[in-house]
């Protein structure tokens, strides 16, 4: 069958799997909400402070939630031998991997989009920053999945890969964090944000093209 069909077969299968395991699906989302809730409890509920911290708090929490959800990207495929079958497929592994990442983003990244504005409201982020928050989430959460996939692919063969995964992935998340939270921060003070949005868009396009290759290479190494 054609490559496009194989790509969508993977997306459909992974979405179906996520639906059958829907209890697990919500966990990263709860985690995200919980981490955001911890901040007012830790630093106090002064509205000014929370408002100033809101972009950072939301983005750091989104980063951690993405990191937490990453482990599920290849874990079950690795454990039940599906990954070996993907490798043996005549289609290029990098495209199949992209399908998996896309499904993963639909399941873990997209829900953040719905919840984050609500949390931003709780933290007192000004309404004028909401559209920017949305745009940065749309552009940057797929980036988190794409970059994170490299790290998971490198560590999926390890029994205790979680700590190493965060050590590998979080430094690579730094630019995403800076530009995304920076854009929201600027929007909150009424400054233009097109530069940051453009950079995020450029990074997303670059990552779409470049990250599946090392991810595929790393999966081949892990299956070894």
């Amino acid at each position, binding site marked *: 069958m054609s490559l496009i069909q194989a790509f969508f077969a993977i997306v459909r299968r992974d979405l179906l799997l996520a639906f059958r395991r829907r209890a697990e699906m919500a966990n990263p989302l709860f985690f995200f909400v919980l981490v955001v809730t911890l901040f007012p409890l830790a630093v106090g509920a002064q509205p000014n402070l929370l408002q100033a911290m809101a972009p950072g708090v939301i983005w750091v929490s989104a980063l951690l939630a993405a990191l937490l959800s990453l482990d599920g990207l290849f874990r079950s495929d690795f454990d039940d031998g599906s990954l070996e079958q993907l490798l043996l497929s005549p289609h290029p592994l990098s495209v199949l991997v992209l399908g998996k990442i896309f499904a993963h983003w639909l399941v873990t990244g997209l829900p953040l989009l719905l919840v984050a504005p609500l949390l931003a409201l709780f933290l007192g982020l000004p309404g004028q920053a909401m559209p920017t928050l949305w745009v940065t989430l749309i552009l940057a959460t797929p980036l988190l999945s794409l970059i994170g996939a*490299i790290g998971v692919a*490198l*560590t999926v*063969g*390890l029994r*205790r*890969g979680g700590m*190493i995964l965060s*050590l*590998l992935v*979080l*430094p*690579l998340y*730094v*630019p995403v964090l*800076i*530009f995304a939270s*920076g854009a929201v*921060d*600027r929007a909150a003070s009424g400054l233009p944000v097109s530069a940051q949005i453009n950079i995020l868009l450029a*990074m997303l396009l670059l990552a779409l093209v*470049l990250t599946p290759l*090392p991810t595929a*290479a*790393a999966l081949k*190494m*892990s299956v*070894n």
Partner: protein
Amino acid sequence: MSFIPAPLSRFFHRTASPPHFYALADKLVPWLTVLFLLLLIPGLYGGLVAAPADYQQGDSYRIIYIHVPAAWMSLFIYVLMAVMGGIALVWRMKLAEVMLISSAPIGAGFTFVALVTGSLWGKPMWGTWWVWDARLTSELILLFLYLGVTSLYGAIEDKRSAARAVSILALVGVVNIPIIHYSVEWWNTLHQGPTVSKMDKPSIHISMLIPLLLMAGAFKLYYAIAVLQSAKLELIKREPSAQWVKSLLENKA
């Protein structure tokens, strides 16, 4: 491999064979050590004694003779590791894997030295041990990248897979370094306002520059010595029962 002329390819394969490389490294290290001392001693003397004190910072600026070369090395070694990683992935050259692995702890060491000296320098300059200066922050993230390489290599049991994994990681890291660097710079100007970076001096007096370059050369040679010694050990650890290792041990005994 076809686009490399045959004699050149033969030369690389001969040099890269473990016994040959081991013998070569053995021969090179004493010479490199002599050269290292020849650069280090005048460099240290020139920097710590001969060069004049800075008109603003007094003697405390002299830490740049350690800080700046260490910071240069930290970046240089990571780029070198990525090159080794590329060679290891494309041509499956074991020597490149060994050099990559041996470089990582040394690079992490230089990065750590650059961080510590930078923070020591910050005390008299800014009155605090740590400021979120763009360069220091980038250096800190670079340290995490190095630690990622070493801990990933340590975690994967099969050392051939581990070498492939860190080769991939080093390549991914090197693509990200400029992005990280510029994003951190941008972040820095956003949050602290444009500050004159301490290293962006338009001109540095020649009596300060010469010792700095000598020290940079000395650091490069130190790296070469350290990486060769560590690569020798790694080669033996990889194939302890190989014929050449056995005959080597017999000769030593």
